[in-house]
């Protein structure tokens, strides 16, 4: 077996397993855990386009999740438009907002950019929490929005079982991973990486670093907002502190850092490690000490940063390389 055949076989196997899992898992609770795992992997992969490839550290991506959720839900509840349509509108609004924040802030370096993104997303959260309605549009302040159950309907993006949600988020995740793979091998990927590593050198080679970062942020915001609509339709309820809050923004960054920033598989591996842990601590520990899961995340992050500063993907890739070379040589 050649290395390429091995890779393809394993990839096909992973595809088959993820496709077949809902047939094996009967419990909606477990399926929900998987759905959220994919949801976070999707969010972090979208974040990775700018936070990983472009080498900046956005810490307020929840604002785009919120924009997606609010836009599609308001359009559906108050203007009777399909959430599928609202999802695209939300994506575009998020892209515009992303570009608008990126333009002045990308000139700042390091921590200043991160702080600005936090400040902006927190600002939006506080604003929404204080708006009951804006003209004809109801935001409902801190109570958030409830989507009334309308029964199984693709048009309304509502399903009675978890399986359709599972396949929707799985498809979204596969597509966004493929997009990242494609970008990382294209001119845009090279330009983002160069601009993130050594901006002066990149500019001298003809790279308009700020422009490429803006494109990446716009795309990342767009994709992130799509997941906001997904979340709204999955839960049928959301409120500012949850969907626009720092917890969500930080968890995305945690997953990326632990999995490996700027690596295609990083977000998926990070989510595979952190999500089960999150669910476990939430179920078993949160009654004793709310917020404990964040402390545990922090500890894990410190350990990973100490021993594998580039995240877990790199050592795992090396391990796989070693195993693969054994299999391919002994098998041949």
């Amino acid at each position, binding site marked *: 077996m050649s290395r390429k055949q091995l890779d393809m076989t394993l990839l096909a196997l992973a595809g088959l397993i993820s496709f077949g899992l809902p047939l094996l898992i009967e419990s909606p609770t477990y399926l929900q855990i998987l759905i959220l795992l994919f949801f976070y992997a999707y969010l972090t992969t979208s974040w990775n386009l700018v936070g990983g490839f472009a080498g900046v550290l956005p810490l307020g991506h929840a604002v785009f999740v919120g924009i997606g959720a609010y836009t599609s839900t308001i359009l559906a509840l108050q203007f009777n438009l399909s959430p599928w349509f609202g999802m695209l509108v939300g994506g575009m609004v998020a892209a515009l907002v992303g570009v608008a924040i990126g333009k002045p802030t990308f000139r700042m370096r390091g921590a200043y950019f991160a702080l600005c993104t936090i400040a902006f997303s927190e600002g939006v959260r506080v604003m929404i929490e204080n708006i009951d309605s804006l003209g004809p549009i109801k935001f409902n302040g801190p109570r958030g929005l409830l989507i009334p159950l309308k029964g199984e309907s693709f048009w309304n993006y509502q399903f009675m079982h978890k399986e359709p949600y599972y396949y929707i988020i799985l498809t979204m995740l596969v597509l966004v991973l493929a997009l990242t793979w494609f970008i990382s091998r294209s*001119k845009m990927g*090279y*330009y983002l990486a160069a601009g993130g*590593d*050594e901006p*002066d*050198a990149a500019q001298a*080679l*003809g*790279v308009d670093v700020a422009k490429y970062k803006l494109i990446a942020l716009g795309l990342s915001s767009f994709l992130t907002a799509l997941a906001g609509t997904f979340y709204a339709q999955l839960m049928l309820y959301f409120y500012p502190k949850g969907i626009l809050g720092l917890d969500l923004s930080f968890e995305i960054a945690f997953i990326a850092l632990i999995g490996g920033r700027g690596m295609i598989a990083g977000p998926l591996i990070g989510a595979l490690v952190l999500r089960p842990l999150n669910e476990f601590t939430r179920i078993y520990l949160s009654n004793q000490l709310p917020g404990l899961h964040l402390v545990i995340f922090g500890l894990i992050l410190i350990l990973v940063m100490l021993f594998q500063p580039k995240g877990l993907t790199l050592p795992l890739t090396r391990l796989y390389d070693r195993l693969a070379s054994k299999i391919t040589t002994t098998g041949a």
Partner: protein
Amino acid sequence: MNILEISEVTKNFGGLTALNDVDMHIAKGEILALIGPNGAGKSTMFDCVAGVYPPSSGTIRFKGKSIAGLKPWDLCRLGLARTFQIVKPFAARTVLYNVMVGAFLRTSSTDKARDKALSVLETLRLDHRKDMLAGTLTIADRKRLEIAKALATEPELLLLDEVMAGLRPTEMDDMIAIIRQLRGNGITVFIIEHIMRAVMALSDRVVVIHFGEKIAEGAPEDVTRDENVIKAYLGSDYATS
């Protein structure tokens, strides 16, 4: 025809005048060397020409057009590439990756960029290092990589800032051969250099600056005999040797 015309360029950093009313030009196809003591303003001149920052006053024309308002990436697209005195490799990436970043300026196809980068690496005799991480290269190879990246953007004018510094004599001979070959391929070369052996071997013309002012200009043999230049820069040892 002059590919680059610098007229009355002054550059102040706060109270410090790094360049004071400097005029110079480069003819197409020429190799021009800019020399002068440490802190004379040589790299500042490169930064002005490459669009890193605008001069405080004066004008710079590239291929007949003023570069006022143009950014480094605009100028690179117009055919002006430069290396940095303190090399700036994309250290965590391979040599090939580094050069492909430059090659992408003229194509959007990854395959074409890779082919272009490989052929540039061959020109610079660096192809055997293509899969190494740029951060692990020796000084000599880093300097070559710096040139390779710039060259991959297909420049008409190439600015080289002290590419000989830190090289051993044989490495320097290779570098001199490489720069001659570039000129042979029709590229105009503007070098900043401290090592006089390289200056003498390469340049058609030399400009000397001292404390931001031009103090001499001419053929290498004439400039090195100029009394002001000997006093300000070369030292009396050079004159007698």
